[in-house]
């Protein structure tokens, strides 16, 4: 929120609406995300008291105040750390991390990758608006090369992160992307993330209409979006276009987009498999959107099962108790060499 633009909207009367005034700028993409979240939460089968929203700092990170569950608005970039403690203390909680592109990829980059690598069972929702919103318009680690912002008057010379590639390499077990304007898709993806056991990461392309308006225009406007967005569907080939008449395939090491006439069979197109053990496949997919002329995939890039961090931690605790018996203070104190003074 550009500071001090208080806007009061009537919260929908849902279970998860809090009594706090929502203070994002009118027209901000964050509203759509909040609305979908409030719609999805009653459907994930977790009672409100077991839901915890944790955020860092930024416009996006105000989110927990607007959800009537447990919440923790922590410090810039560090929500994953706090979430790790919460989840280890009480694995039964459904923990959601709300973060921005600056929050999670700049100041909090280290925590994000370690969260993924540990496969903590939480859901990370990254609101990627390619800009620092709360601090009023500086470039972020996802701003494209050449981007002119308040701190890059001559254009950015920093190469952007591709968040999907990053978390894939860091080991996230559920990786997806969605767009603020496609609310149905977003709701589906949130549900999938909630259902996934392990570290779920969802990048949401979010429009900051004040400082970076239209960053995703091509992906959201009716005239362009069909040729710019590829909806990933498990078990289906990689096809897109208004008439579903365009497809992607490997050509050597390159990706090739091909036009198909209506009768064409898509047999030779690679079929999307979310649970492919081959991580290179998901990595390949994640980079497609960076190639000029190719569409941006949205949907689930990868969904694989691995033991979660808190499961392993609980197992170790239980194992230690089984092996050594529940800790006994007196025994502990006299362990090692003791002597008696009469």
């Amino acid at each position, binding site marked *: 929120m550009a500071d001090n633009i208080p806007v009061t909207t009537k919260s929908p009367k849902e279970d998860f609406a809090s009594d706090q005034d929502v203070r994002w700028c009118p027209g901000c993409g964050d509203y759509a995300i909040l609305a979908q979240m409030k719609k999805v939460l009653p459907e994930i089968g977790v009672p409100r008291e077991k839901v915890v929203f944790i955020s860092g700092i930024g416009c996006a990170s105000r989110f927990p*105040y607007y959800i009537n569950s447990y919440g923790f608005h922590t410090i810039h970039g560090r929500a994953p750390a706090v979430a790790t403690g919460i989840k280890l203390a009480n694995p039964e909680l459904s923990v959601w991390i709300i973060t921005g592109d600056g929050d999670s990829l700049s100041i909090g980059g280290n925590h994000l990758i370690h969260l993924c690598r540990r496969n903590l069972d939480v859901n990370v929702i990254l609101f990627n608006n390619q800009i620092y919103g709360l601090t009023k318009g500086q470039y972020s680690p996802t701003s494209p090369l050449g981007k002119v912002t308040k701190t890059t008057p001559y254009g950015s010379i920093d190469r952007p992160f591709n968040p999907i590639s990053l978390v894939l390499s860091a080991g996230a077990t559920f990786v997806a992307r969605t767009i603020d304007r496609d609310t149905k898709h977003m709701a589906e993806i949130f549900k999938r993330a909630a259902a996934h056991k392990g570290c779920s990461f969802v990048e949401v392309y979010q429009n900051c209409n004040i400082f970076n308006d239209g960053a995703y225009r091509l992906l959201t406007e009716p005239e362009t979006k069909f040729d710019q967005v590829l909806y990933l569907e498990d078990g289906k080939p990689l096809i897109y276009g208004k008439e579903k008449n365009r497809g992607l395939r490997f050509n050597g090491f390159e990706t090739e987009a091909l036009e198909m006439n209506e009768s064409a069979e898509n047999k030779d197109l690679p079929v999307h498999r979310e649970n492919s053990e081959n991580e290179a496949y998901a990595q390949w997919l994640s980079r497609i959107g960076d190639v000029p002329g190719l569409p941006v995939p949205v949907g689930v890039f990868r969904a694989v099962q691995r033991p979660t961090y808190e499961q392993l931690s609980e197992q170790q605790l239980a194992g230690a108790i089984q092996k050594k018996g529940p*800790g006994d203070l007196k025994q502990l104190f006299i362990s090692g060499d003791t002597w008696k003074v009469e």
Partner: protein
Amino acid sequence: MKNIQEVSRVTIRFAGDSGDGIQLTGNQFTRTTAIALNDLSTLPDYPAEIRAPAGTLYGVSGFQIQFSSQNIHTPGDEVDVLVAMNPAALQSGLKSLKKNGIIIINGDAFTERNLRMANFSENPLENGFLAGYQVYPVDITRLSRDALEKIELTHKEKDRCKNFFALGMVYWLYNRSMDATVEWIERKFSRQPIWAEANVLALKAGRNYAEATELFATSYRVPEAKIEPGIYRQITGNEALTFGLIAAAAKARRNIFYGSYPITPASDVLQYMASYKHFGIKTLQAEDEIAAIGAAIGASFAGDIGVTATSGPGLALKSEFLGLAVMTELPLVVMDIQRSGPSTGMPTKTEQADLLQGLFGRSGEAPIPAIAASSPADCFYAAYEAVRVAIRFMVPVLVFSDAYLANGAEPWKIPDTEGLPEIEIEFAKAGEDYAPYLRDPQTLARRWALPGTPGLEHRLGGLEKQDVTGNVSYDPDNHEKMVRLRAEKVQRVGEFVEEPEIYGDSRGEVLVVSWGSTYGTVLTAVEQLRKEGKSASFYHLRWVNPLPKKLETYIRRFRRVIVPEVNLGQLRRIIRSTYLVDAVGFNRMKGQPISVSELKQAIEALLEEKNNGR
């Protein structure tokens, strides 16, 4: 015929290469001394390098022990006996050796190469350099090899037993029984009988050698000290911190969540905690110190007792999260095992220079209660009390220890677990009318409501809170009120915890005020001065924030106040500004504890001022 002389207090320093088993030797001597009912205090000092090259000065590993028939509180300033396993150990140990002190030397190690590495241009055994000491060069390497002639080990392997040969000689010198060490060796090497046999043989050979050759004209005996009855064990500061946390968790019937990032000298605590999972201890080796405290805060939010430990540089990284803990008023324990700074400084050496960082090193007005351990065993009680206060007051609590306490060890009288103070937790209950920032009128603590409890859903965060509701608030009056409430809450801790007592008269000439690990040194200095009839008293702080009420009373009743510290005068600064008193400092920053004799001189100088008309 053995000539035995009785002495009341002895300091021995074992020193050698880090590969010489010095720490082990020191620990064995300590254990035997404890069993012989002497009071004792020890100081290990390791080289900073993991595997320092043999023979170098910086690779010297030392272990100092003072033991006595009276109560003692420090490992001793001046050494009576130096056991030097090589020239570097001799070179570095000489400066603290008493005049006419005993030096036991491994003559085999005095090769040209070793001498050169120790900066001796000539062999000090041959040029009269050691005149004024009682020097006993013994070919320890050769003699232990001889003793192990029948054992099937290589020369190199046999040389690893030579520390026991040296220990055997020292046992003879102090009329010690070898039983405890023999029993320990046999237990330790029960699966490698050849090593058990070799080490025991070397130990006995050392003792027999001293006896048979009448090496020392005199041997010594230190009579038993009066020691409180009970069961004892040796404990280091870091072990004691661990035990204190585990005990507090058991008493509170909650799990401890311990998040940390390795840093000398705090790493041990993470290692120990990780091995006590059967006590319900969850440990996280976090990606950095920031994540470690963040996770601890998260765990506290969800109902575990969140704890983290680090050293000065790590505390700096934690400061933003500490501010969040102050704002969200969650229980949390942060332990700072201080080391020499600034920056990486001297990571293995001690210092007390994080006091101001700990008390004030955060953005905004962010006071937190802080307790300082005064001895290795006291770390147990400091950690325990920190947990108690954190929970009772819903605050982050800082525990100060330092490298000296962390690695130092002393006998610890094992407490009766039932006798430990209770730690009660009362969580907010489902269905109650919950306001996150409604306070207990006495402690000002807010109530702890755990995620998972129906009806208590609430949001915490770093933004300023409206009084009672905890909603975000920018109201000017509310902010001032909250700043004052948070400060007042910390002050109220002072009414809950016990205030320390003064040592000596409660009025007089000079009052010594100190905190943390200087306790033993200051007590010894003041004890000695009082024996000499001087008017000096001693007030040692336990909580450094809030300060005890009695402190001001005492400060007013003495002509002079002196504050000894291993820093440039951080507590002194606080005392001067809080009480407007012209307190003077005694400040040494050598990476070591301050010395009793130097401190005594400083206090004496203040005592004498009066005669000069001040």
